[in-house]
């Protein structure tokens, strides 16, 4: 059996890539996908822990996380589409009406 830590390392890498993506990228959709990557990293470690401990709660939680991710996708896409219709851009550094 593959040791738990392998899964955790992969998930940590996924998570870090997601965080970096959010911080570095400027395209709203790409940022958004990076966030989804973070959620999926969490799913991976949930499943890994769940298998490792032979406790199925973790896999159940993944369902909820997926549902939430889906809901976020929906709302996020709607927001981005609306934004694009008004701004003609989805690059977050070009969207700055509000400022101190």
């Amino acid at each position: 059996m593959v040791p738990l830590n392998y899964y955790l390392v992969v998930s940590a890498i996924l998570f870090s890539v997601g965080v970096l993506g959010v911080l570095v990228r400027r395209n709203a959709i790409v940022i958004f996908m990076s966030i989804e990557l973070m959620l999926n990293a969490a799913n991976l470690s949930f499943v890994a822990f769940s298998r490792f401990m032979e406790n199925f709660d973790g896999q159940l939680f993944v369902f909820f996380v997926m549902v939430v991710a889906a809901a976020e996708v929906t709302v996020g896409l709607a927001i981005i589409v609306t934004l694009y219709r008004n701004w003609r851009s989805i690059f977050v550094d070009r969207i700055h009406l509000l400022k101190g």
Partner: protein
Amino acid sequence: MDGLKYLAECAGVLPFLIVVGTGIVILLVDAFSPLGRKGHPAYLACVGTVLALAALFRPLPLENELFGGMIYADAFAVFFNAVFLLGTLLVVLLSVGVLSWERIERGEYYALLLFSTAGMMLMAQAANLVMLFLGLEIFSIAIYVLVGMPRHQRRANEASLKYFLLGAFASGFFVYGLTFLYGAVGSLSMSAMAAYLGTTQTLFNAYLLLGSALVLVGFSFKIALVPFHMWTPDVYEGAATPVTAYMAVGVKAAVFAALARVFWLALPTIRPHWIPVFWVLSALTMTVGNVMALTQQNVKRMLAYSSIAHAGTILMAVTAASDQGLTGMLVYLLAYTFMNLGAFGVVIYLQERYGVGEALEDLRGLGFQSPLLGAAMAVFLFSLAGIPPTAGFIAKFFVFAAAVRADLLWLVIIGVLNSVVAVYYYLRVVVVMYSRSAESGWHPAISESPAGSVAAAGALVLALWATLHLGIFPHAFWEWARQSVYVLL
């Protein structure tokens, strides 16, 4: 047998069900009423909220944990549910008139408002961290939409995108933190975690710390603790004002409720590790929030930074880590609900009646033009500044008292210095209100919505009364908060 138990458990979350049900009814009514003749979803929302409030004060079920340890039905939850519902009631009342001004669809608006309230309620009574996460997301997602509802306004689009991206980012941290807590304990049920931590000392301790750190980061984003606050002013400014008010009050209360539950019920032995972090966060948040608020020219933006600062003050109560601290936190949140909604309410009222009110200059001469409104605004601002005999003072007093009691003298001194800074910028608004107006800034009423005005005025009166009442006779509220806190200790 099974079914009866199920029914009984449903009765345990009756207010929650009422709120959700009302939201659904509003959706359906909105969908089935003909285009020209819209119903009055606001009335429905009011009725639902009041019913839920009434249902709150039923006797609590004997058994605390419902649905197989997923939900708590305890006094703590009741207190916070009351805060959310009162906040929602006020926001609904304040929204009646201003929605047409912001060009927001009505039915959806109220339904989303109620759904997000339901999410907050779920968050306050979650007994399992997954439920907590669900509650968090339910209200977050509803609010993402609410922020973006004035969809023809570019700034609302922008605010909504920013809030959404950072909110989802925070959720990512939160969930990832949950995985480590789960990995450490093998369950996300709070009581199971507490039981496990009570017996085991070292196993997976790194996971626990990492998990709680990530969870804390997630929370910090949501309540805009410095340095996770960057989104707040933009989002607060861009959203429709009632939504801003709702965010400032509801989200803060919900997340603080969750914070208390997690760090008291689930992770009691981890908490001491985090106290220094709370300390730093609290000091930073107060200071940055207040200093940034000093120069704002937009009232909403100013209130946004002030809301950051208030979050820091409330965090001071958490840092105190005592029953007095928690009591103070509860009272503070209750008081903040009234005074902050009141302050926003005045802005909303102005927007509705005159179409202005966001810029600081719009308030020039308000105190003379409309003495009652001006006086109310002044009371709310003084309350926010923490000047007696208002709710804000009592709240701040309790929090400072708890912090002094916990020997956090330096933090208190930072807090005190911050109060002075805060006084300055709240006072600035009062100054503008009571400066002679150039007469040109005031237009006659642009939108006549009698029902809206009445509702908003009612909300203002309610908030004003509560602010003063809480300030002068705090005992009952204090006692209530104190008893609500006992379940955590």
